[in-house]
């Protein structure tokens, strides 16, 4: 029993020394890339990415493995038939305003060698439109009436109505699955687990392995019909904490990282590393303060303070949104006009946002009877009730937390008291959806299509939790959506109408900042599906 102290120390020291690897720094082979990301891809298989699995991480892995009929072009225009690039479909044409015909590329092959056929497309769309399998896909493809194969290489899509985003709906939502491997499996998702564990696609990369909680490894598909990928191995590494991700990047254990999150100090660290290059990429993130126009707890009553448009406007005027962005996002974000992310094609040509104007804000508030009557610096109404509001913030975001502190201080300067209520994400969502807030610090992940705006900004929109309703704006929205061409002017008049009504203070449209090791010379990162062009990158050093 008397094991001596020295022995113990010796053992501890020996352990530490032995644990040192023969070569500590990752030995990087020339044609591999390690991408570090924050979320684990769990089920990167089209039509299975439903409900909880509809994550960005799943989408990004899926986009390496599976191809669509066509991809959105660099302009990100979702309306009309022009802005798209061929993928599985070599070309497409219209029979009439309700019918689209796709010609499949005869060179397209699955990873197991089988050719991609029209049957694969009809099989996939059938699954996607089945509400019991994929309710999300079914609802976004609801306007597709029929999908039929004409021979092995031709697919015909019939639509229920005439609208501008037919091609977008036919191609964007569902990458194509191999029918010959899946047809016999039945619809239940558990029968799919073998396939999900080793998915077979038609994309530039094929599946190699997954280490649960650590990484996924993909290898180049040498027979890829659009060209052989330059980089042999793609490893997508998971680190939930952004600190760990940045460390991996700085230590050279990862070559690339998506979206370096605010605060700006993170960016500064990466920028200072000589081996790394920052790549700004437009994002679909929109941050805004949503004003509740209904009283919390009593959805049938107007909000005692915020139902007043002038008060909402005054609050927006009180904010210096440019400062907010510079302080928290640095150069990587701008103040949007209306609910428009930096990825949405309708942002081009939109009017400029209004600037901070504290005197107008004060005048507006005073005009509505909000005056500081007791000298405490906070305004009161005629009954002496203070102009005090609760700002609901999710504790999961550092950036929003910081902005909330600045906002609190900025509105205090015009005599408005704001309590920041920081709650954990699950609680935040529950409060938000049940309308239990005065002001909600929302952060939305918008669709690349502006038609999604109806979800939150139309009277009956399922995501309209603030009780904003303007029939005039709704009809403008309908007009813009139905137009067969990409018509920015129509969209802009809708946005102007929204800004006028001020249902929210639109704070920032974020630009993501990716970091890539400089040994990769030619780098192109696509918005919407960041790494989908990775296969075109030349190998490093070439």
């Amino acid at each position: 029993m008397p094991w001596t102290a020295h022995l113990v120390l010796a053992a501890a020291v020996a352990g530490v020394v032995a644990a040192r690897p023969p070569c500590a720094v990752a030995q990087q082979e020339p044609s591999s890339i390690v991408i570090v990301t924050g979320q684990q891809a769990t089920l990167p298989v089209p039509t299975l990415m439903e409900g909880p699995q509809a994550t960005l991480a799943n989408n990004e892995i899926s986009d390496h493995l599976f191809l669509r009929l066509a991809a959105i072009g660099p302009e990100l225009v979702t309306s009309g038939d022009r802005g798209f690039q061929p993928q599985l479909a070599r070309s497409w044409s219209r029979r009439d305003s309700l019918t689209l015909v796709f010609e499949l590329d005869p060179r397209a092959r699955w990873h197991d060698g089988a050719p991609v056929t029209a049957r694969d497309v009809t099989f996939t769309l059938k699954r996607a439109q089945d509400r019991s399998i994929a309710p999300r896909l079914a609802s976004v493809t609801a306007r597709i009436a029929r999908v039929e194969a004409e021979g092995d290489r031709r697919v015909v899509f019939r639509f229920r109505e005439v609208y501008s985003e037919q091609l977008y709906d036919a191609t964007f939502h569902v990458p194509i699955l191999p029918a010959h491997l899946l047809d016999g499996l039945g619809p239940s998702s558990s029968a799919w687990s073998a396939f999900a564990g080793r998915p077979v696609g038609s994309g530039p990369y094929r599946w190699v392995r997954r280490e649960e909680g650590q990484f996924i490894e993909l290898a180049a598909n040498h027979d890829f019909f659009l060209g052989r990928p330059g980089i042999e191995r793609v490893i997508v590494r998971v680190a939930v904490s952004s600190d760990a991700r940045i460390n991996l990047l700085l230590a050279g254990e990862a070559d690339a990282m998506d979206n370096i999150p605010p605060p700006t100090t993170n960016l500064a660290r990466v920028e200072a590393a000589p081996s790394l290059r920052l790549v700004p990429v437009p994002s679909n993130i929109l941050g805004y303060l949503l004003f509740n126009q209904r009283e919390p707890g009593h959805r049938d009553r107007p909000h005692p303070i915020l139902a007043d448009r002038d008060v909402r406007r005054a609050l927006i005027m009180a904010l210096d949104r440019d400062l907010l962005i510079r302080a928290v996002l640095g150069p990587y974000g701008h103040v949007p006009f209306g609910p428009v992310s930096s990825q949405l094609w309708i942002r081009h040509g939109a009017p400029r946002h209004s600037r901070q104007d504290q005197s107008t804000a004060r005048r507006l508030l005073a005009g509505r009877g909000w005056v500081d009557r007791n000298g405490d610096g906070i305004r009161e109404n005629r009954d002496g009730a203070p102009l005090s509001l609760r700002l609901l913030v999710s504790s999961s975001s550092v950036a929003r937390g910081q902005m909330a502190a600045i906002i609190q201080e900025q509105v205090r300067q015009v005599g408005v008291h704001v309590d920041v209520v920081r709650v954990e994400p699950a609680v935040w969502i529950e409060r938000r959806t049940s309308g239990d807030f005065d002001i909600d610090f929302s952060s939305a992940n918008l669709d690349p299509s502006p038609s999604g705006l109806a979800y939150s900004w139309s009277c009956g929109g399922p995501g309209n939790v603030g009780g904003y309703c303007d029939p005039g704006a709704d009809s403008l929205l309908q007009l813009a959506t139905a137009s067969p061409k990409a018509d920015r002017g129509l969209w802009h008049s809708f946005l102007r109408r929204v800004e006028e009504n001020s249902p929210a203070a639109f704070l920032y449209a974020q630009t993501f900042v990716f970091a890539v090791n400089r040994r990769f010379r030619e780098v192109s990162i696509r918005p919407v599906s960041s790494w989908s062009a990775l296969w075109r990158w030349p190998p490093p050093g070439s």
Partner: protein
Amino acid sequence: MTAWLARRITQAVVTFGVAVALMFVLMRLAPGDPLSRMQEDRMMDPAEIAKTRAIFKLDQPIHRQFAAFVKGVLRGDLGLSIEHGLPVNTLLASRIGPTLLLGGATILLNFTLGLWLGVRQAVRRGSREDRTLTALSLAGYATPSFWLGLVLAWLVGIKLHWLPVAGMQSPLLAPDAPWLARAADIGAHLVLPALTLSIVTIAGTMRYQRAALLEVLRLPYIGTARAKGIPERAVIWRHAWRNALFPVITLFGLWLPLLVTGAVFVEMVFAWPGLGSLAAGAALGRDYPLVMGTALLAAGLVVTASLLTDVAYALLDPRVRYT
């Protein structure tokens, strides 16, 4: 002894059951919904919400859910994680190894070094060494683990390039690499997280060991041992330390579970694929099946640790009665 052990094990099982039931209720009482995590970034269609609810039986009353859960547990099936879409069994199985590895390494480091230093401090009580060690260990203790982890990762990983900064294995190392190379790789990844956890927890071990040994060193039988002429080292380690081990055994029992679910920050900072961060994520996302799975595992560990503590007492202290 056998009867005592049997009774003690029965108690353990009861405790386990109570804890699990309690957690089930707690989790359901907490506000928030398992679907909220997904809605955070993305607007969900009502049909999609309804379907997901049905899949995970969230639309049923709580007692039904509990019954289904218990039935599943008895069959050894913990259900499907809502967020990960994988069976909870699979998730736990993939995380338990890394967790035990990190926890084991930390406990080993903590207890070997902590006990040894605590004894040194007690023996040299009041010396400059004692004071310095106290100050250092408390400084380590009061340092937030994520802070220390980040500094260590920066210094050792980024500046010096001695050790990897995060993860458990290098993804570039082929899975069919020689056994030794893979072990060395994992070992290298283990050093920083284990060191961080040890530094922030070692003060506890040292302080308890020091206090306990000081208590014992004043007892007359230490005088007897010295007067016998046995070497001082034997006096300390054989006579005093054996008796000063009891509070430390309790501490050990308390830490075992803590190292399983309590290492959240360190696991995050070092991207260690352990249970702590899995459990935290599950609780925050209200991923009920996964929460219950990790809770089951944690409760099992606590109960086992407590059992082992009692057995260790009984084995080490001849005076404890088996009643």
